[in-house]
């Protein structure tokens, strides 16, 4: 039974090994010139401002919550897309209604200023 998994095991081993060897060789032969700047965490080329563990403004959570709510709806689109042709017109109308309801929620959030940053 476990033999079925041997291919995955081999793949895991090889992938790890290739990566490990590459890092090891780079470490062994590459030139090393250390400086304070290089030791700093990389932030898209910008100079870091303050420590990374400070508190985030609560606005981020608001946007994140809204994002999750509208994002999760995708989950209902995928199975619908798979059987789209079999469902025919009825399925299309159902989905339009579904998106319409979401849209009302979106417009509401927008008009109430939930998407304003300041």
């Amino acid at each position, binding site marked *: *039974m476990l033999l079925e998994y041997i291919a995955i095991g081999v793949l895991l081993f090889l992938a790890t090994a290739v990566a490990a060897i590459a890092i090891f060789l780079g470490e062994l032969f590459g030139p090393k010139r250390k400086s304070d700047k290089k030791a700093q965490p990389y932030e898209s080329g910008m100079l870091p401002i303050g420590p990374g563990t400070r508190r985030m403004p*609560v606005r981020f*959570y608001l946007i994140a*919550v809204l994002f*999750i*709510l509208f994002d*999760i*709806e995708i*989950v*209902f689109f995928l*199975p619908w897309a798979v059987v789209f042709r079999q469902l025919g017109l009825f399925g299309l109308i159902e989905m339009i209604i579904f998106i319409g309801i979401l849209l009302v929620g979106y417009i509401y959030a927008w008009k109430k200023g939930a998407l304003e940053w300041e």
Partner: protein
Amino acid sequence: MIPLSWYLVLSALLFSIGLFGVLARRNAVAILLGIELMLNAVNINLASFWRYGNPAQMGGQVFAIVVFAVAAAEVAVGLALIISIYRRRKTVLAEEIDLMKW
């Protein structure tokens, strides 16, 4: 193939860990995490029952999809409430949110 019971045991363990978290943790966010674990245990159950039962009937999969859509909504409301409490009282510890007692 891995027998069905293994998945069910995994799910039961996960559910128990989640329930323990809900009952024992003090931080409100951690309690929400515990609830998420419980819901994910349910999803493991649903997916494995579907796979080992009758894979042609999609009931279990559909159920799992509905569960995590609902879980997202629940957590959004939960976090929003916790944030609003935190703004006013500067705490997320469940035992300190106790204005009312019987």
